[in-house]
């Protein structure tokens, strides 16, 4: 286990040390102490390493992650795991705005609640939130799966494309072109897999699926009120 004191050694040294790891590294376990809400912790990683952050983080923790597992034993600031490509980011506490924004792949697990715009413009990532999510989540979500064990706020899935949204609790309101959809066997399979990977205590049958009505995919003046 490599232990790194962020307060004394600094962000630049941390990220450059993590970037120095490659697929063959034997330094696979890293522990970061004294994060104290610092921004850009463990960003741009590209190696099969496990990074544990002992405390809460600021903006963009795990941003653009590839391959690595980043585990935050605290809460995360805005944009956690933004544009993640692969790997896994786990937040034990809550996540602020834009969690998993534009992420292309990998798995983001938030064991607490996520604030507004969770999964905004997501492009293939899987996101599992054990608690609730805020308003405008999955705005313009393109692909991937967003699983919410709790409730969703206003305007869920506004202007979304082909992402799947699964909510166990209530949805305060749906955004433009987002509708309730049938849960087919392949969706139950997705849920079963993601709930297991996220260590979430819930049954796939308890969820409702939401997705795009695809009515705004091509401009129609009769839909002007929705734009």
């Amino acid at each position: 286990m490599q232990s790194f004191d962020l307060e004394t050694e600094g962000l630049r040294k941390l990220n450059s040390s993590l970037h120095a790891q490659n697929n063959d590294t034997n330094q696979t376990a890293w522990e970061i102490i004294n994060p104290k809400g610092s921004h850009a912790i463990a960003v741009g990683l590209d190696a099969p390493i496990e990074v544990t952050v002992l405390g809460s983080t600021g903006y963009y923790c795990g941003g653009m992650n590839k391959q690595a597992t980043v585990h935050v034993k605290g809460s995360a600031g805005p944009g956690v795991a933004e544009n993640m490509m692969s790997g896994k980011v786990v937040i034990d506490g809550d996540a602020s705005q834009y969690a998993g924004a534009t992420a292309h792949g990998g798995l983001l697990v938030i064991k607490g609640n996520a604030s507004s715009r969770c999964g905004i413009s997501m492009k293939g990532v899987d996101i599992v939130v054990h608690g609730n999510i805020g308003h405008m989540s999955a705005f313009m979500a393109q692909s991937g799966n967003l699983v919410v064990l709790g409730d969703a706020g206003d305007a869920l899935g506004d202007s979304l494309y082909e992402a799947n949204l699964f909510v166990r609790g209530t949805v305060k309101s749906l955004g433009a072109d987002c509708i309730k959809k049938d849960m087919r066997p392949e969706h139950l399979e997705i849920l079963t897999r993601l709930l297991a990977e996220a260590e979430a205590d819930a049954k796939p049958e308890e969820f409702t699926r939401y997705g795009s009505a695809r009515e705004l995919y091509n401009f129609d003046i009769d839909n002007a009120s929705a734009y």
Partner: protein
Amino acid sequence: MTDKPDNTAPRTVPIQSATFSNPVNAEIRRAAATGIYDIRGGGSKRKVPHFDDLLFLGASISRYPLEGYREKCETKVTLGTRFASKPIELDIPITIAGMSFGSLSGAAKEALGRGATMAGTSTTTGDGGMTEEERGHSNKLIYQYLPSRYGMNPDDLRRCDAIEIVVGQGAKPGGGGMLLGQKISDRVAEMRNLPKGIDQRSACRHPDWTGPDDLEIKILELREITNWEKPIYIKIGGARPYFDTMLAIKAGADVIVLDGMQGGTAATQDVFIEHVGQPILACIRQSVEALQELDMHREVQLVVSGGIRGGADVAKALALGADAVAIGTGALVALGDNDPRWEDEYQKLGTTAGAYDDWHEGNDPAGITTQTPELIKRFDPVAGGRRLSNYLKVMTLEAQTIARACGKNHIHNLEPEDLVALTMEAAAMARIPLSGTDWWPGKPGTSF
């Protein structure tokens, strides 16, 4: 018996309304018939105060010129000297502006890379990610970081030469990109993670930051990911250049790209292009003022775009305080866009060479703004690259000609004192004396 009508009697001639002109009425009829606003490519077509309204004074008894062809007039420029460990060094102060694969064909992107590289300058990606064609043929490639984040990935971030965070665009400050279904081919759809054939509307603001304080943190993240090597550009539209420049500097920009309303777009609403944003002439001095007040002029470089056509425009932009310029529309014309050789086909599309701007429909006869394979075949990226290189070199020679005439051994030595304005509007916007006077509207110490 009745009198015959007297056809020779004086009568009121038909008068067209200046307000409800024929083009205006035609647009009303088009909107009524189709139920959709006019979407088009390009920049503002209306006449606005521009570089044509400025003149260089040249040499005189008090200013002696340099000998053309014999005395050196340097054109090299370095961008990104503030924080980046690997600034970009260019042979000429003219760069290629961001244009997306999707709006342009892969071959056109390749030609932009070829031409820019031959001329010793950089080219820029666009809303749609980085293609192998442009990376492979661009010695210096700027990677745009846009609200949509289409195709954004850390590998491309690391293999670019600089990162341009796009906050705004001159053609549509406050608007996102638009790519209509006709141009969402299989490849474009795959790169953007979108269903084929949809009308794609990019977000107008970034999904994971709002405001200058967040932007500062976003820049920190990008620098950390790329080992503090890459210059970070921030591109702003011509909205509030003084304040936007101040805030971009505060957020940590290495380079500011300032784009006026004449700057082109692949597609957006005509009403946006023509009615939002300011002419580039009105923006440059405001931006330079902000740089100077923060003691950052030349420390943070300023790249100006929007209506740059020839070497005179380059020289005037630099004289007003820019470090470099970027061209988009001019580069496309050099590649062959709107070439009269395709006039018959432009006519079939209901337009004419020089006026063709339905780039979003993907029917470009020149094979540049299209994803249709049969049309793309018409365009030769090698020959197109050569034309672009020629154009860039001619512009540079023209700018050097002017700079030498003003006695400058580096084109960055051009200064506002070398200029006069032909109109009151240009004088006010550029803060340059009206020709024949030592005054401009708003000059400090004057009563106007």
